[in-house]
């Protein structure tokens, strides 16, 4: 930093920081993401990865295109249609099931080509955000 006094950061509310740097004032709002910290400044969104092995290591490496991929509900809602059966071979981008929340239907698509190795979603079932509905290998 060129500023001899350096940036001054003050916590003004939980998750809200006031930053003074080179005579300018910024307000930053922070949310904890899955593998990162999400910082909002004036409506701009920054996903910042934190290099702290104590905090984040357990989340690392849980995802990859190789091997088994879980399909999780992106939001709480209801399964309105299941479009495939266990054991089906699917193309990347093929619709697997439809989840409805807040009167909007959202088709969950296969992230890669493969075989449906697990299918726990049932039509009419209520699901939580992040709940695993199917898996593709």
């Amino acid at each position: 930093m060129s500023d001899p006094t350096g940036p001054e950061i003050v916590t003004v509310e939980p998750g809200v920081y006031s930053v003074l740097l080179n005579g300018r004032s910024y307000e930053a709002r922070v949310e904890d993401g899955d593998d990162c910290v999400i910082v909002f400044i004036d409506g701009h969104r920054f996903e910042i990865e934190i290099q702290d092995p104590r905090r984040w290591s357990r989340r690392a490496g849980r995802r990859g295109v190789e091997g088994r991929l879980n399909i999780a509900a992106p939001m709480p809602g209801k399964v309105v249609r299941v479009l495939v059966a266990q054991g089906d071979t699917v193309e990347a981008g093929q619709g697997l099931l439809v989840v409805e929340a807040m009167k909007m239907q959202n088709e969950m698509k296969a992230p890669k080509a493969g075989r449906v190795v697990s299918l726990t979603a049932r039509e009419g079932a209520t699901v939580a955000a992040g709940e695993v509905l199917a898996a593709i290998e």
Partner: protein
Amino acid sequence: MSTPVFLKVLIANRGEIAVRIMRTLREMGIGTVAVFSDADRTSLHVRMADEAAWVGPSPSAESYLRIDRILDAARHHRAEAIHPGYGFLSENADFAAACEAAGIAFIGPSADSIRRMGSKTAARQMAIAAGAPVVPGAHDVLSGPAEARTFAREFGYPLLLKAVAGGGGKGMRRVDSDAELDSAFRDASSEAERSFKNPDLYVEKLIERPRHVEIQLLGDRHGHMIHFGERECSIQRRHQKVMEECPSPLVAARPGMREAMGEAAIRVARSAGYYNAGTVEFLVDAAGNFYFLEMNTRLQVEHPITELVTGHDLVRLQLEVAAGEPLRLQQRDIAWCGSAIECRVYAEDPYNNFFPSPGKLTRLTRPLGPGIRLDGCVYEGWTVPIDYDPLLAKLAVWSESRDESIARMLRALREYDVAGIHTNITFFRQILEDAEFRAGRLHTRFVDEFLERRQPFTAPEGLESIARLVAEFHAKHNGARREAEAPPQRSRWLQSGRLEALR
């Protein structure tokens, strides 16, 4: 203080509109009764009301749409009138009739008017009979291309061939000249035959890049009706209005247009014996020709911008005329001052195809200061339910001119902070910065075209390095403590299931 028009009113709705109606009731010295479903026990409209009645489980079909339960609540709480808000039962003729039969005033038009305006084709016939312009078209089956050619000679190209049994754009063809007509007719007809097993077509004039402009009406039960001018609602996504303004930039630029639209709207409403608040929607072409589309027989979501520009409280006027009082305003009393814009703030993720984003609001800072009106139903710590429309608040601003209102809205959106869930706040900032929007060149496909041309919402130079500093600071000061305090992740559904079992 004079005696209020009613002693107690039940609001058969939830969310921001229930809160908005309650505010006027309270100003008028009228008691308020809220209704709520399981999902809404902690919602703001219940917290604000004088009295509250549970009307059923979370799905609206089992609660907010249950006429019997709402009327039971009204009787039990001795409400003299029911305000239906918008959505839910607001345009349900059976509900209006059931209220009147129970001796409870329905704050809206008669059941008969709702029924007559409920069918689009019947409403179109009524508009024609009342002498209001409709999109030129022959809604009878065409015998062949020759008949469409005759139509084109009268109304001009482009025209639209549509399947009588149609829907979803199937069996529909745009025709720009005589030369294209024969083959377009053949294509549309065979596509209609394949899709609907019915080859019949009709013809309609195609309105290119139409605007959606609507007229606010209010009438009493003694035959007196006035209009409150127009609202421009061309900014729509998936046929849902997301941003509205008053006046319409097009109407404001054309002397006499507001009066002409207002008079046409009143003629249509009168022919249905209409009273209370209502809105007549028109399609408007670039030349300023307007065509009747349909009538909404209720208070509209976007009514606050009319209130800001005219200075009248439409809910108060609704209550007065519902009590049988004569409307105390004449047309000459209505004047339009300045410019108002409204943004519908939704719990949805503009970075992820606008998916709904229900969940808990962990932090909330509202815009304040000159010219701001915020009609909301949220508070810090509240969980946005998954069961209903994800509208969080309507942010409206007023200023002297359209340019100043745009600047004021941008300022207000910068102050608005909602954490824990995603909102479309930055999406509005981008639209308000768009050159086409600023020039007032609006039409109903505006948002679709905007989404194709919009640039990423890029941050100014240097902002990311500040974000990194803050992230490190946050991790250092919060990371360890959070790790220690964080409760194990649990499913909300599981928790509510357990609570259910304990009841």
